[in-house]
Every structure is written in structure tokens, then in C-alpha cells.
């Protein structure tokens, strides 16, 4: 399946948000990370079951330094 993750096109077998995160080694239960799929936030409690679709745009963001 082809996804757009943080602006890059990615080919993946991951079928859920959780699986995608695991693939990228993003520590999914930690504080400081959030996921949006096609401009909508996917709450943490739904990561496990949230099904990804071909061409989904996924944003994985983290808190970082800011003013």
C-alpha cells in the first residue's frame, strides 16, 4: 500500500496506524506524539484499530523546541 507519511511517499504493509508507527520505530505510547490522517487527528486510543487506506496522507508529529 502506498501512503504519504510526513510528505514522503512510503510503500508499506502496515494496515493500521499502530503498525505504521511500529515500522518507523516511533514510540507510540509516549507523550509528545500525535497522528493525523487526511487532516483529522487520530486519537491514541484508536491507533490500534484505525485502518489505513491507499494514498492516505499521514502526519506524525512531535513536540519540539518552539517559541
Amino acid at each position, binding site marked *: 500500500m502506498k501512503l504519504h507519511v*510526513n510528505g514522503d511517499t512510503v510503500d508499506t504493509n502496515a494496515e493500521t496506524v499502530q503498525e505504521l508507527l511500529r515500522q518507523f520505530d516511533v514510540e507510540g505510547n509516549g*507523550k509528545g506524539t*500525535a497522528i493525523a490522517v487526511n487532516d483529522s*487527528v487520530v486519537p491514541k486510543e484508536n491507533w490500534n484499530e484505525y485502518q489505513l487506506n491507499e494514498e492516505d496522507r499521514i502526519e506524525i*508529529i512531535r513536540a519540539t*523546541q*518552539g517559541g
Partner: protein
Amino acid sequence: MSKLTIADKEFDSRLILGSARFPDPDTMRRSLKVSGTEIVTVALRRANLDRDDSEDILSYLDQDDYFILPNTAGCYTAKEAVLTAQMAREALGTNWVKLEVIGDDETLFPDVPELLKAAEQLIMEDFVVLPYANDDPITCKKLADMGCAAVMPLGAPIGSGMGIRNPYNLQIIREQVEVPVIVDAGVGTASDAAIAMELGMDAVLMNSAISQAKHPVKMAEAMKLAIDAGRLAYESGRMTRRLYAKASSPVEGKMEVTGANE
């Protein structure tokens, strides 16, 4: 010195700091600590998926027990800003947000209509909204009237260090709204912060003035003192100004010297 209350939270410190552009994380941590700040802003950016982000600013801030205030820096539209705020709430478990909706990247001045739109929507979604705004009494009044927890007019452009360019507007804003007025951006050195507080501002939010000083930790201490100095001076009721002099030493009882006035 009276405390600062924003929404339902009470703070001892009237200094809010950004976490950006410090020379290194250790300098940031020491600066934050020395400043006495209780609130620290963070931005939200795409996770780096190629490698482990070795420096995790958040964990430091968490360990040190700051109240974390996510911003929507870099957003140009209400839509972007609202989604960023929602992401921040999800990522950080807070419904507080420093709302920035800027008009361009040269001045980083707010885009007023988009800012108002974003604020309105976020308030409906139960966010505690602290909007970065122009030093414009009308916009600030609208933001306060729609339910923002504070208004944050700029003193000068972000990162400019130009100080409080228009104290008159800030004074008018202070008189026109009930919520806390926080000067966000522009402060370059300690006296700028003191001036803001003497104008009756409730707090100051700064970042570059500390992180871009030659010695950030020392400047953090300077800012802590300046904020308190300015607030205390405001609460003290300053002496009145006069064009001419007024002797402080007593004028009567001076001894006489022969030929003194020859």
C-alpha cells in the same frame, strides 16, 4: 507581588519562556530553571522518521515539571492552526494553546481574520486559547470578548529584540480588556521586560532575548529579576514626573559661609 491567574490556573512567575534556539539542551534547561518560569512553550513538528531524535526536549521539560504550552507557530490559516492545536492536545494532553496564525514569514505578524476565526473555533472545542496578536485594541478586545483566556499583543516583531515599540497601544489594550494581557515577542533586554510590566501587563512571553544572548543563563536570571522589578514598580505607584528639579536634601538649616554668594 500578586499572582498571575490565567483561566483557572494560578502562577507565581509572570515570565513565560519559549524553548527554541538555545545553543544546547543543557543551556536551555539551566536557563529555564534560573528564570523561575512555570510555563514553557513548544512547537509541533514532523517526527524525524529516519533516525531517533536523540534530544527529546519534551522529556526535559516534563522532568523539570513545567506547564507545557504548545504553540501553532508557522500556521498561516485558521484550518492549519486548528488542526495543529488538536494535534497538540492529542500529543501533550493539554487543551491550552498559544495560538499563532501569521500573515507572512518576513514580519511574522498575525493574520487578523484567520486568527479570529481560529480562536473562535478552538474556543468552541473547549481550548484555553492564548492568542498572539497585533498591538491592536480592537482585535484584542474581540479575542477577549469571544472567550480567549488572555490576549498576547506583540511588543515588536518576533525575534527582533526591538523592545516595546508602542507602549501607548499596550496601555489602551490593558484598559480595554479584562483578561490577562501578555506581551509576546519583541523584548530584547531586561529593561524592555520591566517596561512592559510597568505598563500594567500581566506577563511577558519571550524566547530569543534569552536564547540568543551571549550568556543565556545569565540573561534568564536578568529577565526573572526584571519581570519582578517591573511588576513591583507597577504595584508601588511611581513618583510623578516633573520637568524641573526638586531637592531631596532639606533646603532649610543650611549653614552660612562668608562670601559664599559673592
